């Protein structure tokens, strides 16, 4: 993966081609697309009413992210600056069409559950944002690694919501009942408002962690 950094096209700028853990981890933790950057919120809230939907959406988005990142990065010295956004969108739309037909072929149930949200991956601003901010400036191998990290971060975030909503809302995990018959399911969690509330809860949790860390640092500095 590391030796295909477009030998045909000499890079215009001196590029830093080192791939380290940071290239991958940036998307997973520091700049998590959902919890930190708040990008691509529509699928995050819409399809996370069960764990399996969340996982499928995460994988589909990652595939598009990696494929479009690789192609954009491969063509980065050929795309005219004025038409770059349009070019990126066409590239993304192509891969989304492929993924859309692939899911339809693999599992029709899943396709029906996700509905229009697979095609709406095109309008996920995270993918366009990555193409513009990262893939158009870095080598193919580096973009792929970074896209994988971003995709992993997005999938983890979707799962964070999907698991909580499924467990509370239907009392199941991956369709397996967790509690006895006595469990009164918390229906609002799988309805639209639940999506807003669970994401707000996660953001509160991360903000609280951040604040506590800062407070501890302050105490440590004072001795």
């Amino acid at each position, binding site marked *: 993966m590391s030796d295909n950094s477009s030998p045909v096209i000499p890079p215009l700028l001196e590029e830093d081609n080192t791939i380290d853990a940071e290239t991958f981890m940036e998307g997973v933790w520091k700049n998590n697309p959902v919890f930190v950057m708040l990008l691509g*919120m529509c699928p995050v809230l819409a399809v996370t009413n069960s764990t399996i939907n969340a996982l499928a959406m995460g994988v589909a988005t990652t595939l598009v992210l990696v494929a479009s990142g690789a192609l954009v990065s491969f063509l980065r010295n050929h795309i005219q600056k004025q038409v770059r956004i349009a070019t990126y969108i066409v590239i993304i739309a192509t891969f989304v069409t492929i993924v859309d037909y692939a899911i339809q072929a693999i599992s029709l149930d899943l396709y029906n559950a996700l509905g229009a949200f697979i095609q*709406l991956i095109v309008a*996920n*601003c995270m993918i366009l944002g990555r193409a513009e901010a990262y893939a158009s400036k870095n080598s193919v191998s580096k973009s792929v690694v970074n896209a994988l990290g971003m995709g992993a971060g997005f999938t983890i975030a979707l799962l964070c919501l999907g698991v909580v909503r499924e467990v509370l809302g239907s009392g199941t995990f991956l369709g397996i009942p967790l509690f006895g018959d006595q469990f009164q399911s918390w229906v609002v969690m799988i309805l*639209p408002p639940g999506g807003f509330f669970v994401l*707000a809860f996660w953001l509160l949790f991360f903000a609280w962690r951040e*604040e506590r860390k800062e407070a501890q640092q302050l105490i440590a500095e004072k001795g």
Partner: protein
Amino acid sequence: METSVAFIFLNAFLINNFVLSSFLGLCPFLGVSGKLSTAWNMGLATTFVMIISSLCAFAINEVLMALDLEFLRLISYIAVIASAVQLVEMFVKKFSPSLFRALGIFLPLITTNCAILGLALFQTFREYTFMQTIGFSLGAGAGFTLAIVLMAGLRERLDLSNVPSISRGAALSLMIGGLLSLSFMGFAGLGGGA
């Protein structure tokens, strides 16, 4: 199968509000809803793009169906939306430079507003006729405007209130979004529970 245009309008406007229960167009909903006047203008601009692009999408779908090229649907829709946004941008820049400055980066970002692409895709899935398409796009636009204006009004008040520091920003907006969404569920019985 034949649903009345008025019901389709009401459905997209209140019962299945585009933002609050279909989760479409959340980026501008959370991003531009800081000030009431900006939110109102953003709603109008989005509605305008919605009407134009859904009519174009309707025409394109007819052509693609006739030529048996359905797999090009997504690419052609997104191209149409991008052009419609460009058109609105030129229009706004010419007639109201102050509005143009107020909307800033969010105007070109209407292109990646999933509410618009979602509208085009939903009308295709549900096989709406021409009149139904018009009703649907008007309802979706009105629903988006209503949601973003309500949100902006609430957030303007919230700026002055004293909330815990960890909930400032996105978390609080999402909680308000959740409450709005909860209250919109009350419209579910409207229109004979269909």
